[in-house]
């Protein structure tokens, strides 16, 4: 059972993602910002990270960079789920090491498809 971590400062978004992926049979853990996510990721092994970009304390791009700097998360898929749709931001995410970019609002079916694809 792969473990997925959702990182978003909006509680309802975390709830939606947990519900969608929980229904698809994944174990989902939640973090309210980048800093909390980083701490959780250090404590346990996470198979996939779905993170927002704009968050307090630590934003999504910094989180991706920090995770990529850790040995156990060098190749873990990280998806950005955000309202940002600009190419510039996407490029930032890509160069930081994100695996993919999903623009909000997400479609549950599509999200599950993408998760299946990146988890292999």
């Amino acid at each position, binding site marked *: 059972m792969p473990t997925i971590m959702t990182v978003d400062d909006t509680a*309802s978004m975390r709830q939606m993602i947990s519900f969608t992926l929980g229904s698809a049979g994944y174990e989902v853990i939640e973090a309210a910002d980048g800093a909390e996510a980083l701490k959780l990721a250090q404590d346990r092994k996470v198979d996939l990270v779905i993170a927002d970009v704009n968050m307090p304390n630590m934003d999504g791009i910094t989180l991706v960079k920090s995770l990529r700097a850790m040995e156990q998360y060098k190749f873990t898929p990280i998806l950005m789920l955000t309202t940002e749709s*600009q190419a510039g931001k996407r490029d930032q995410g890509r160069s930081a090491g994100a695996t993919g970019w999903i623009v909000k609002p997400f479609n*549950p079916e599509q999200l599950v498809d993408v998760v299946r694809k990146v988890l292999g």
Partner: protein
Amino acid sequence: MIPASLATRWWAWAAAACIGSWAWTLAHVPTLVAIGSGCATLIAVVLLLGHGVRRYRLQQASAVLAPGPGELADATAAAEEDEIAALLRETNKEIGEIPPVDQILQSMEADNHRRRLEDLLRRWVDVAHRYSEAALVLRKEIHAVVQHTEQAANTISSSFQAVINKATLQAREAMELLEGTQGGAGEGAPQSLTDFIRVSDERLTKMADEVVRVADLSVQMVKELDGVQSRTQAIDGFLLDVEKLADQTSLLALNADIEAARVGEHGRGFSVVAQEIRRLSQRSHEFSDRIRQHLKAVKVGLHKTYGDMRNLSAADMEHALKIKQEVLELTRSLETKNREVAETVSRINTISREIAQDVHNVVVSLQFHDITSQKLKAMLEPMDELRRTLFHLMQETMAVGKNLLPSRPAEGAETTAPVPEPPSEDDAGDSVIRKLRAVGAPTSGPPVELF
């Protein structure tokens, strides 16, 4: 400069009235109008004074000329010219002395300018103050809206999750229940409605077949009983033969007895034999009678059995056929029910798929909160930035105002100026615009992209 006698002249009064009205105007009407009216008054006064001076000189000249209008005309004309030239010089000198009025006007204009600047500064400060208060209220309201929508979205989302979970569970249980009626056959007892129908059909058919077979056997037995009956009749015939034989034997014994009597003593032994033979014949008759009686009882029994068997076989057959028909109808009815159940299962499947689609739509729609919150939060930053910009402009305006008006700084402006909130970052405006674009702009790339 102007003689006192002139005061009695109308133009002098008019000039005084003009100055007076201008003075009144200056105190009561806006500055620009006052300046305009000042200029008009000045021109009117100059014209009136010029007119008065010319009139006065002409009167003086005519007074000089009046006593001797005859031969002295040339001499007086020359004197008059000199006089006029002198008067003109005097008038010019008097006009040259007007500048003090300009100075007054200039000083008044400067005063007005200062007052306008002061007024402008006060208005700036007032606007800044009010905007700052409004912005703070707006900020508070926006935060409240964001919080409320977040709470509402959380409640809606958890309620929906609960509803969806329950609906899913309900659908699954209904499916399991219905699938149980449609499921595969087990080894022992029937596991589903289909199995039940099949097994009961098999067993009932088997029973009906058994009944039919029993009925067939009955018919067979009836036929065989027919054979037995005809054999009893044959036995009856044989008994008649036996009785005939007995009769003949009896007759033979009688004859022997007669012959023995005729022979006399020598035939006595023969007579005994003849008697024995007669007795044997009688016993044969008795046996034959008994056999006939028994045979009769057998025939009666057989006849009854035959009738019973016939009835039984007909009833069995009828019953068996009826049961078979009923079993068939029952099976058909069960099959119809089963088809209905299958259709219900199919409908439940369709509804489950629809529920799944609805759930997806709900999940998409419930994300509105995150998007609206971000948009609302994005509104705050340009607002704060505008406030900061306004404050800087205010400060600059005040600095310029102080340079212009060193003696009269805008006290009101300083006391009512809002406490400045220094800009947090230099490029705050740019970042705000970028964010706004990011939030408000239509999607410029694909909704999902894997790098």
